[in-house]
């Protein structure tokens, strides 16, 4: 078990290192090809005094001569950046000179709330629908579950979001406010945009909608793995032991079918990061997805890098957690 954890940890660190280097290299290439982002500091329009430009370049770590040579991996600035990250210095934005750490303190909790709700939605729905479909295999229920989930999954998430905002959200908000008032739970619940005064309530609906991303995949995963276990020999043994139907399901089927489901949830989590950009954009939630998207538009190199680093860390940590959950669930992995 100890060796398994250490091996997985080292693999995670290696993955993270490679991802961070690739990010840095892509950023360096963009500077080399597109030109100096330090000009943004001066509004990007007028040509600044060369002495001041040099000072700003030094301040943002853009003074290395490697940025002049297209294709140079810029290893020295990479190491410097890692050192600064390690010491907790996330740098500042080019425009407005704001501390990136402060920005993250606002954005990360919002995205986290969104993801918690999405994950709960997708896991609950997929477990319920998948179990139901597996129990009634080949019946109308099974086919309708499959058809519905695939339909929901094949509609782009921004379309669902826009239809929700314009068709459902606006009239429902009007109706709810008429009955319960603007400041009530219901009055805020259907709000078409995020309200920082109600950070949980106004994020539930966007979270549920984001949760439908990948619902079909996970539902079918749950269905398939439960079917496999329902027909397994050890379930027949459990029946022969005179166990009750519910105990057989809870003790001998659910745990065994959790292994593929845990994998699925791990991948979905990474997949949802891309959905978050759209959801946060349409619903006006100040979160990581929207932040990265806007930073890319404004050529805020440092902000892009920090944002992507955070999401890379999240994905690596989630897959590490998935690997550890395997070991908890399956003794064959634990004792290998």
């Amino acid at each position, binding site marked *: 078990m100890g060796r398994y954890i250490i091996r997985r940890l080292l693999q995670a660190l290696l993955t993270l290192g490679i991802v961070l280097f690739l990010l840095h290299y892509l950023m360096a290439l963009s500077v080399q090809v597109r030109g100096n982002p330090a000009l943004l500091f001066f509004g990007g329009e007028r040509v600044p005094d060369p002495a001041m430009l040099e000072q700003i370049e030094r301040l943002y770590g853009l003074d290395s001569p490697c940025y002049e040579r297209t294709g140079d991996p810029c290893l020295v600035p990479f190491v410097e950046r890692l050192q600064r990250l390690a010491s907790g210095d996330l740098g500042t934005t080019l425009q407005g000179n704001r501390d990136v750490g402060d920005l993250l303190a606002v954005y990360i909790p919002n995205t986290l709330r969104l993801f918690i709700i999405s994950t709960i939605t997708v896991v609950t729905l997929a477990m319920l629908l998948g179990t139901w479909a597996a129990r009634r295999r080949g019946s109308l229920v099974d086919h309708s579950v499959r058809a519905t989930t695939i339909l929901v999954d094949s509609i782009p998430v921004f379309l669902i979001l826009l239809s929700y905002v314009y068709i459902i959200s606006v009239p429902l908000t009007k109706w709810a406010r008429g009955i319960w008032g603007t400041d009530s739970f219901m009055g805020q619940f259907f709000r078409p945009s995020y309200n920082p005064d109600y950070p949980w309530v106004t994020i539930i609906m966007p979270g549920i909608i984001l949760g439908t991303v990948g619902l079909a995949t996970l539902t079918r995963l749950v269905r398939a793995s439960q079917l496999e276990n329902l027909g397994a*020999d*050890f379930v027949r*043994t459990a029946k022969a*032991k*005179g166990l009750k139907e519910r105990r057989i399901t809870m*003790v*001998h089927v659910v745990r065994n079918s959790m292994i593929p489901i845990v994998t699925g949830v791990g991948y979905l989590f990474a997949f949802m990061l891309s959905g978050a950009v759209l959801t946060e954009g349409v619903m006006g939630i100040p979160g990581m997805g929207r932040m990265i998207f806007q930073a890319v538009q404004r050529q805020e190199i440092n902000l892009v890098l920090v944002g992507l680093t955070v999401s890379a860390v999240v994905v690596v940590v989630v897959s590490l957690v998935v690997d550890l959950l395997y070991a908890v669930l399956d*003794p064959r992995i634990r*004792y290998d």
Partner: protein
Amino acid sequence: MAEYLRVIGDTLPGADMNAPLLELDDLRVEFKVRGHRIPAVRGASFTLEQGRTLAVVGESGSGKSVTSQAIMGILDTPPAKVTGGRVLLHGVDLLEQDEETRRSIRGNHIAIVFQDALSALNPLWSVGFQIGELFRVHRGTSRAEAKKKAIDLLDQVGIPDARNRVGNYPHQFSGGMRQRVMIAMALALDPEVLIADEPTTALDVTVQAQIMRLLKRIQEERDMGLILITHDLGVVADVADDVAVMYAGEVVERAGIRDTFKRPAHPYTKALLRAIPRVDSVGRELEVIRGLPPNPADLPSGCPFHPRCFAAEDRCAEEVPPWTEPAEHHGARCHFAEEVYVDER
């Protein structure tokens, strides 16, 4: 001994202790596959007395495993369905009991050991948990007490160092040890009937003999009725008391073990016996039964064995043979049972 003493009537209302332990009367099971009803068991009858071992012998597809699962009541319904007959335990017809009663009979009165212990045990729970589960569900025993009983059982089936191995998982045991775990699990609630469905087929030859001896020892110690399902007559020669030979979903011959080996009354049994390799057959070509087992969806007319039978005549293809008893406690479903019995065919 007090530990083993219990009142059958508590969990099996209406039990008649003078009736045979387990009696199968014309059991019929069908499978429904894509609208077609395929008979898997077509009237199986046999009797098992307390303290006896009955070997149910037949090729794969002869319905012997389906029969055992029908006795347990663990057939997947659908597609399988018991369409007729009676399964009498102490004179009580199990097929007429509600699901709750049947569930409490499983493990308590009838237990089963499956062929492949690796897939029959849940890979994610320790063997101690899986054995203890029986006490906890049926007897309401505490976790700690159940573990103690599990250790005791593992010890009884000959697993060395049971105290330390009780927390191990199925994949940490060898094939033979896993089968012992299965047997311990089946014995947990001290059932009167133990069904062993090809218990040694997945094992090495040397381990096979050990498991057979273990089953025999336990059966004698506990005075159980043991049903030994196998495709290999040779395996059961020294352990069984009676033999029921199955072919195409029916019992074609029933007799004591000595009679079966010495004077089989059904040509199929005779052919099976000839197919057992023996020391004096070294150098000679092994005899086989020509042809393949019949497809249950498309059985031959008359006697289902006639296309493969060395003694078949025209009437075998037309008339279903009746049950004939050429001797006491020795019956066969063959037109020529008498002649085969006295070795004239």
